[in-house]
């Protein structure tokens, strides 16, 4: 864990100092009361100090390195991440029902490895159900898609 802790310690140090630096730009005092900059300034400094502490601690650290997934597992995690990012980006363009269908098709197929017919039918049915429950029944307003919106 020593390498990982060194990296996270350094990140925390940088983030903390940045926060403190940005907070310096805000008023620290307003009349007799503490200003909006005081609390973040203190937090930033504390966070930076903790990052430095983790860095220092990592020199004596002999604990086992973190358990990252194997290659196949890492690929699946990356797949989910990309699919989710694409989903959020797509929702804005083509709306909730179609992007949900596409998202589910992609993951059912790539992750579950089901046959295309099953995948498409299941994805379509589930997104329709989602749409009916959330939009029609519970009255949430989900994105309808800017590409499809000519009104």
């Amino acid at each position, binding site marked *: *864990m020593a390498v*990982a*802790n060194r990296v*996270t310690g350094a990140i*925390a140090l940088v*983030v903390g100092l940045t*926060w403190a630096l*940005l*907070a310096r730009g*805000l*008023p620290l005092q*307003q009349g*007799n*009361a*503490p200003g*909006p*900059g*005081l*609390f*973040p300034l203190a*937090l*930033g400094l*504390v*966070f930076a100090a*903790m*990052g430095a502490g*983790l860095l220092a*601690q990592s020199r004596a650290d002999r604990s086992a390195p*973190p*358990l*990252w*997934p194997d290659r196949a*597992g890492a690929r*699946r*995690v990356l*797949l*989910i*991440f990309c699919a*989710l*990012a694409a*989903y*959020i980006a797509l*929702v*804005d363009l083509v709306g909730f029902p179609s992007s*949900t269908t596409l*998202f*589910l098709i992609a*993951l*059912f197929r790539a*992750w*579950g*490895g*089901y046959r295309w017919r099953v995948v498409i039918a299941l994805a379509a049915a*589930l997104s329709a159900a*989602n749409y009916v429950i*959330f939009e029609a029944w519970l009255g*949430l*307003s*989900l*994105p309808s898609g800017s590409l499809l919106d000519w009104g």
Partner: protein
Amino acid sequence: MDVLNGLAQGFAQALQPANLLAAFVGCVLGTLIGVLPGIGPTAGIALLIPITAGMDATAAIIMLSGIYYGSMYGGSTTAILINTPGEAASMITALDGFQLARQGRAGVALGMAALASFIAGTVGLVGLMLLAPPLANFALSFGPPEYFALMLLGLSIVVSLAGRSLLKGLMCAVFGLLVATIGIDPQAGVSRFSFGNPSLMGGVDFISVAVGLFAITEVLQGMEQKAVSFIEAKLTGLWPGRSDWREARGAVARGSLIGFLIGLLPGAGPTVASVIAYDVEKKVSRHPERFGRGAIAGVAAPEGANNAAASAGMIPLLTLGIPGSAALAVLLGALLVHGLRPGPLLFQQNPDFVWAVIASMYVGNATLLLLNLPLVGWWARLTRVPFPILGPLVLVFCFVGTYSVRNSLFDAWVALFFGILGYVMRKLDFPAVPVALAVILGPLLETALRQTLTISQGRLDILLTRPTALALLVAAAGSVVLSLYGRVRQTRLVTSGVLGTDED
């Protein structure tokens, strides 16, 4: 309003059709969330807050509380049947519960779990009723310094119990507080750390943080592993026999008491309660060697403890506005969304709301017993939904839940960010619960601190001259120091596997 009067009025409200339906739906969803491994009570409540936004506040909170305590029942089902706790508080139940299932006594274990849950949940509720009003009265005298100290206590207990490294836990809490400073400052109205971006000015929504850290992280983690195989357990004889009762009744009683006391502490929560109750039971048992090999008391004690702790956790939440666990932190967020500020004033200003929620928990506990005992086989079958189907569906719910809070795609991106962050944090042994709690408490903590400094004209020693504030600070420091030594450390090691998954 005295207790009986309040309770009577509460029941009058809780038994109205709309609230009855809310409690029922909450219990069903809670059991479902408890049963399904990919999603826990914290994410479940967070996902449903936007959906309840249009509901009446009382019905909404009744439903969300139902999810909270309902998940405690549901989690035990999968713990016993497939050795996979649906949520962390049932982890300990799996130790003996699964052994019983392998010996063909799954029915008895499930029955005992449901009954112990019911009894302990009811005990916890009686305690809640008796203890909450006087505590609220006492807390009426609290000023900003006391609130500040109290919130520090909550955070430090969470930190001292979560994860293996104290420093990492502290870093997580401070990181959450940092995140909470993004956006318009609560007092002066100045925009901070938003770089002129209007979405950032609105602040980072805690629902996105909770959904990311708990739901998305959980799905990513689940992606790594291959699907689990199930054992077909025969479900016969759900009602525990006389000898089972004799063995377990002490465990239920002790578990309820321990769970209740631990649940009162902000930060400890149901998971820790179940670990300690199991430990105690093993110590007092005449047959400690049976534990881990299918002791019925080993099911009754943790199940009793986690349900009593769940009820007890409502006490600091409702009377002081201090959530004891991640799930309760999200419930606190739900109360704020509905314009209810938990704290001592809640009992004075909205007594009918408070009592309706308490009464609904009696209704809910009875509902859960009925839902769980006869239908347990049906619930168990749900766990056979393969994760490659369930996971993507959970992600769709994550999108809907985060997007609909403010109809903002930005919130969905934030959830994705915290999902990845949570995944990496888990790998590196950083606990997620302190982050979530700090994001919610951040603005309240900062406001209390600034008011304190205004009162004292900039001197921090005001915290040391007010006895209640001082006592709370000493307790906060004590919890951190204690976590470095002795028993708490041991408990932490036992729970680290559990709290590492961060569903309390």
